[in-house]
C-alpha cells in the first residue's frame, strides 16, 4: 500500500503541513503529447491537510503557474461567504514518497496568509487512510 509518513515539528500549532507537487492530469498530458502541444509544468506547493474541506483548494496564482484551464465551475460555502463561484481544474497531486493521486478536481480560491498555497480536502482523503498522531507529531497517509 503506497504511503508517506512525515514528522512535523510543533504539529499542534502549525497543523499537518506538507509539500506536494501539483501537476497537470495524466489524461491532459497524454492528449497534449498526442497533439504535439506544450505540456503544462508541475509546481511544488505547501499544503495543509484539512478534514473540514469538502474539496482540495489551490491558490489561483499556482494555477496560473501550471497554466491549465478550468473544466468546470462550482459553488462553495466558507465561514465568511455563501455560494461563491470558483473555477474547477483537473490535476494530479503528488505527495512525499511519490504517492500520487492522479485525478483530483481542484478548486481555485484565495487562501489567507502567504505560506499555505493548498488545502488537501476530503476528495483526496477518501482514497486512503489518514493517521494524525499528535503525541508523536507524525502524519501518515496510506492509499
Amino acid at each position: 500500500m503506497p504511503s508517506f509518513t512525515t514528522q512535523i515539528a510543533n504539529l499542534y500549532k502549525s497543523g499537518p503541513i506538507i509539500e506536494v507537487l501539483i501537476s497537470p492530469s495524466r489524461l491532459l498530458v497524454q492528449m497534449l503529447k498526442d497533439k504535439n502541444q506544450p505540456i503544462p509544468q508541475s509546481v511544488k506547493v505547501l499544503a495543509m491537510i484539512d478534514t473540514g474541506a469538502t474539496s482540495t483548494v489551490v491558490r489561483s496564482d499556482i494555477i496560473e503557474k501550471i497554466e491549465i484551464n478550468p473544466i468546470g465551475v462550482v459553488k462553495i460555502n466558507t465561514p465568511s461567504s455563501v455560494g461563491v463561484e470558483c473555477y474547477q481544474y483537473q490535476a494530479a497531486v503528488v505527495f512525499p514518497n511519490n504517492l500520487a493521486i492522479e485525478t483530483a478536481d481542484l478548486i481555485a480560491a484565495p487562501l489567507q496568509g502567504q505560506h499555505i498555497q493548498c488545502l488537501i480536502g476530503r476528495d483526496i482523503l477518501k482514497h486512503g487512510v489518514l493517521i494524525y498522531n499528535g503525541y508523536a507529531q507524525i502524519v501518515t497517509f496510506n492509499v
Partner: protein
Amino acid sequence: MRADLLKKDLDYFESKLGELLGKSKGEYALIHEGQLIDTFKSKEDAIKRGYELFGNSPFLVKMISEVEDILNFTSNLLAS
C-alpha cells in the same frame, strides 16, 4: 467571476437546464463556447472528450441536476 472564462458556457447551461433535465437528468453536459457538445453518463468521460476536442482550453462539464451541490469549507484560511 462569471464575466471570465466560462461565462458563455454557464449562461448557456442555465438557459437550457429545463430542456436538459427532460432528456439527460443525472448525466454530465460538456459545453464549449456556448454550445452543447454532448452529454455523458460519467464526469470522467465528459472531461476526457473535452480534452480530446479542445486540449488545454477552457470548457464546462456540469452535472444536469435541479439542485446544484455546494462544497463546504470550515477553515478560515479560505478568504472567499
